[in-house]
């Protein structure tokens, strides 16, 4: 019997069977969708999308996921909410929770804020990204996308290249990929790699060339403009030269797949032609995102 979960804040709290159950549900929702079968499992449920940080794709993806399950959805962004007026996260959560939603999907710019939220609400918390900590739904949709092409990740070599130290996508992916038996490699400018990776169980590569040589699939991460402004890399051009994925990489290794959580800086972390080539899984990631989020919403217990 698959277990239901009170909250999903971190991949670290999932077992392999939890993850596999989520993949199973996501595939089922995908099949049903293509056959025109509608879902009603969350009818009468209320899902609040509480986004304390800007997001377009994740927020829309969660909204659509909840709607496809029949739930009622309320969404807000911090601009235009009381948070912008200086209300604390604690008060905002208490206020939302006093209206008895079943699930709060939360994004926040501070690491640990999802776990923080679980202490003060009766609703289920679904972490849609907490600072530099985790982004579990992204990792799960990435893994589902990989499982669509590989069947199993056991022994597969997956690379992550870019701003590792500031990336919640990287942290969730490392945990999940290892949970599923993959070997994980990371790569990026040394100023954007954590100084101590001893607990991560990953290997590091110096340049993207080396990474691609080692890996079956490589995920590129977005380089935030603020990192460039902070002078943590020499220039966008230098970044592309050492860490950007270019057409010649695919030409020399035709079996390679490339991924990106979006939004993409073309010509920096990945070239336009690569991102839109037949070796790119980027569009599939987005599509799978909705089904994974439907599955995640489905395994939650809801209000205590």
């Amino acid at each position, binding site marked *: 019997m698959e277990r239901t979960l009170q909250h999903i804040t971190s991949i670290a709290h999932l077992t392999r069977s939890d993850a596999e159950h989520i993949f199973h549900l996501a595939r089922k929702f995908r099949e049903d969708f293509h056959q025109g079968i509608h879902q009603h499992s969350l009818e009468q449920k209320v899902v609040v999308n509480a986004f304390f940080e800007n997001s377009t794709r994740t927020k829309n993806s969660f909204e659509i996921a909840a709607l496809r399950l029949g739930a009622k959805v309320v969404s807000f962004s911090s601009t235009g909410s009381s948070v912008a007026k200086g209300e*604390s*996260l*604690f008060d905002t959560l208490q206020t939302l929770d006093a209206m008895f939603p079943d699930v709060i999907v939360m994004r*926040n710019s*501070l*690491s*640990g*804020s999802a*776990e*923080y939220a679980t202490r003060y609400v009766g609703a289920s918390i679904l972490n849609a990204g*907490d*600072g*530099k*900590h*985790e982004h579990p739904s992204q990792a799960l949709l990435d893994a589902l996308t990989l499982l669509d092409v590989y069947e199993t990740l056991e022994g597969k070599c997956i690379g992550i290249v870019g701003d590792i*130290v*500031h990336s*919640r996508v990287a*942290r969730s992916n490392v945990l999940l990929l290892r949970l599923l038996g993959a070997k994980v490699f990371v790569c990026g400018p040394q100023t954007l790699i*954590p*100084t*101590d*990776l*001893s*607990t*991560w169980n990953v290997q590091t590569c110096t340049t993207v060339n080396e990474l691609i040589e080692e890996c079956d699939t490589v995920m590129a991460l977005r380089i935030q403009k603020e990192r460039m402004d902070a002078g943590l890399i020499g220039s966008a051009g230098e970044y592309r030269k050492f860490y950007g994925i270019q057409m010649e990489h695919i030409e020399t290794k035709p079996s390679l797949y490339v991924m990106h959580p979006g939004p993409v800086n073309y010509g920096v972390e990945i070239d336009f032609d690569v991102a839109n080539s037949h070796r790119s899984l980027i569009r599939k990631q987005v599509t799978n995102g909705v089904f994974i989020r439907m599955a995640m919403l489905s395994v939650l217990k809801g209000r205590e």
Partner: protein
Amino acid sequence: MNVCYENIRIVSPVQQLHITGYLWIKNGIIEYVGEQRPDVPNDVEILKGNDLVAAPGFFDMHVHLREPGQTHKETIETGTDSAANGGFTGVVCMPNTEPAIDSIQTLEFIKNRSANNIVNVHCCATITKARKGDELANMLSMVEAGAVMFSDDGGCVESADMMRRAFDYTSPFDALLTQHCEEHSMTKNFAMHEGSVSADLGLKGYPSVAEDIIVARDILLAEYCGNRRYHAAHLSTKGSVRLIADAKKRGQRVSGEVAPHHFILTDEAVRGYNTNAKMNPPLRTQADVEAMWQALSDDVIDVIATDHAPHTFEEKMVEFDNAPNGIVGLETAIGVACTQLLHRNVVSLDKLIEKMSVNPRKVLNLPQPLLQQGAIANITIFNPDAEWSVIPERFLTKSKNTPFTEYQFKGKPVRVFNNLKMVDCML
């Protein structure tokens, strides 16, 4: 008050006294200390001292009393109550109050507010006006008014030039400068130690080297300015301990202190985003903790000081990044020190008393209380073998921000005597 302890261990390192015998205190004055049974009148309360140690009163040279300005966190009254309850008879309050202790007026205010207290309250004054780092404070007047040392604690004197000027300016008075050692350019918005745990939690790290750099800089400046007196506050890294050891070997007048949490906890305590494990300097690694044990044992670190930093429950119950740094420490110091140092044979009983009573006063050039007939009793009685569980509701500090809730410790303060008063420790 007229009590006589029998079979109590009496340990006073400055007097080279370590005996088991009798200690009789009448109206706050020591009537008798010795191995022979004194001839006591019938009205004297005789107490069994078999499990107890009597030592010169413990002294904490790094305490945030928060008054003036932040009395919602702590007041001089609650802070000194907490000190006495934790077994201390003297404290130095740090100057990051509001206003900062950068004037004679604020110094006098604290002196007046703490008069007639069982706990002696001394002041650390600021190096620069309002701790802004721009202009020297009226340091000379504050030396005259009784400031025992100087620091912009809470932050570091960022400019090497300003620190050099402070050494020079106070050199005719041979004042003691102490530093919160943090190279701020490397620690902007930090939340914890930079290491594997910060990598896992996605929190901004404070690398050890940012502490080491300032310790090294200040040692060089103290030497350059003519071997000035310098005390490195709340050391947390293996690297800074090595620098202090080296400076001592070369004959510099430097000393160092460590807070109990830095010799018992590591950054692992932050997992789960526990804001009561958030402080500055942050909890470091096991290698750093072990370096602290070694440094205490080798006398590279002279002093144990708590860095008692009260914050209210509301202030601490926020997201980790938004929580203020610091924990309360006065009422757990003896517990941590006995458990972690004494019972693990890192230091002897005499050495423990040196670090918590003798050395802080030595570093500050304050008189040493003596356990001898006729002296005013300034004494800490503690039971090094008492086992207890930490219940923060019993603390007398206004704030309860401790990472040690429900910790089991072996070693507990029992009673303090000072200034003709007596207080029982109720933990």
